[in-house]
């Protein structure tokens, strides 16, 4: 999938990954790649600014953990993040359904 197509849905994807449990940035990127069988493979540096923005909006929270003596930032979904995820899932399903309907109609 082209990176430009993915950008618009990045927030939904990140919130969905973190809904499964707290994770650090590398694990989130790996989950995106593995969960999509390699379809979602955008530049990894784009994910951290998105995580920081979601945290500043109150949808995520983060804290420092320890990874073999190295400091690691771990993110988790907040209550507001869970509510936002539900809302964005509904929007996505409505949008995807409409696209499927038109594309199906066109063919």
């Amino acid at each position, binding site marked *: 999938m082209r990176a430009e197509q993915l950008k618009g849905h990045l927030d939904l994807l990140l919130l969905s990954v973190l809904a499964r449990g707290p994770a*650090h*940035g*590398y694990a989130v990127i790996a989950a995106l790649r593995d969960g999509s069988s390699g379809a979602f493979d955008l*530049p*990894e*540096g*784009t994910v*951290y*600014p998105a995580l*920081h923005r979601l945290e500043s909006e109150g949808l995520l929270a983060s804290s420092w953990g320890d*990874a073999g003596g*190295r*400091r*690691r*930032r771990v993110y988790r979904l907040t209550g507001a993040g869970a509510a936002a995820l539900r809302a964005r899932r509904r929007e996505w399903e409505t949008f995807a359904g409409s696209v499927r309907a038109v594309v199906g109609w066109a063919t």
Partner: protein
Amino acid sequence: MGHMSADAVDRYLDELLAALDGRAADIRRVLVEVDDHLTEAVRAGVEEGLDERAAAARAIERFGPPRVVARRFARPFSPGRELATQLVLAVLLLAGVGMTTVGVSGAVAAGMGAAFGQQFVSGDHAGVTYTPARCAEYRALEPGAATCEEAATRHHFGEVVQYRAAAGVVGLAALAASALVRRRRRQAILVRLLPEGLVPAVAAALFGVAAAALALDAVTPLLAGEGGAGASLSAAIVAAVAGAIGAGTFVRTLGVRAERQPAQSSM
């Protein structure tokens, strides 16, 4: 992680640090996270069979160019926040100039005292009297004074010069802080939200009004031949000079802006 891959990661982090802008704590957090990410990516590459150098190169390539990554961390432009920042800086600059001007007027007052006597600067107006208790306080503060009035004059002269000097020090500190903040606000494109020339215009107006008011205050004792005119006169002179500098700067700003306007063709 071996030293070859660590060097590559360190070089990447150095480039990222140079490109990042913002608060020190935020920058530090980004660097720690990116360092952790690249370290883990290198480890994963080695586990997949790549050598250290190739694993580091792949990790860095996947992460993206440092300048591109740094741009994505930049806070989105907020007109409200930027306007508030520019207003605060303008007020800080005006306050610094104002307080420094007060300090300079203290030096002028000290010079007037040396040239014309302390009575000229801080002598009491006609009709001012002190209670015995107040006199005793002044005599205790100025034991070398021959009379209560002389003690009061010396004490008030000291206050005029010292308080204004202290204000001058505060003003210079405010100007230094203002200059430091302006230098640290590195922006590729400076969005001017306040009208050009606003600060010098406001300074000219404020100093002009102050100079007029202080000059009026000095006129009566001057004409009456009484003491005390120097305190207001010294401040009026310095305020008038500061106002003139502000007005000149404002006019020069208008001139520069007029030169920047594209020439209008006449039909």
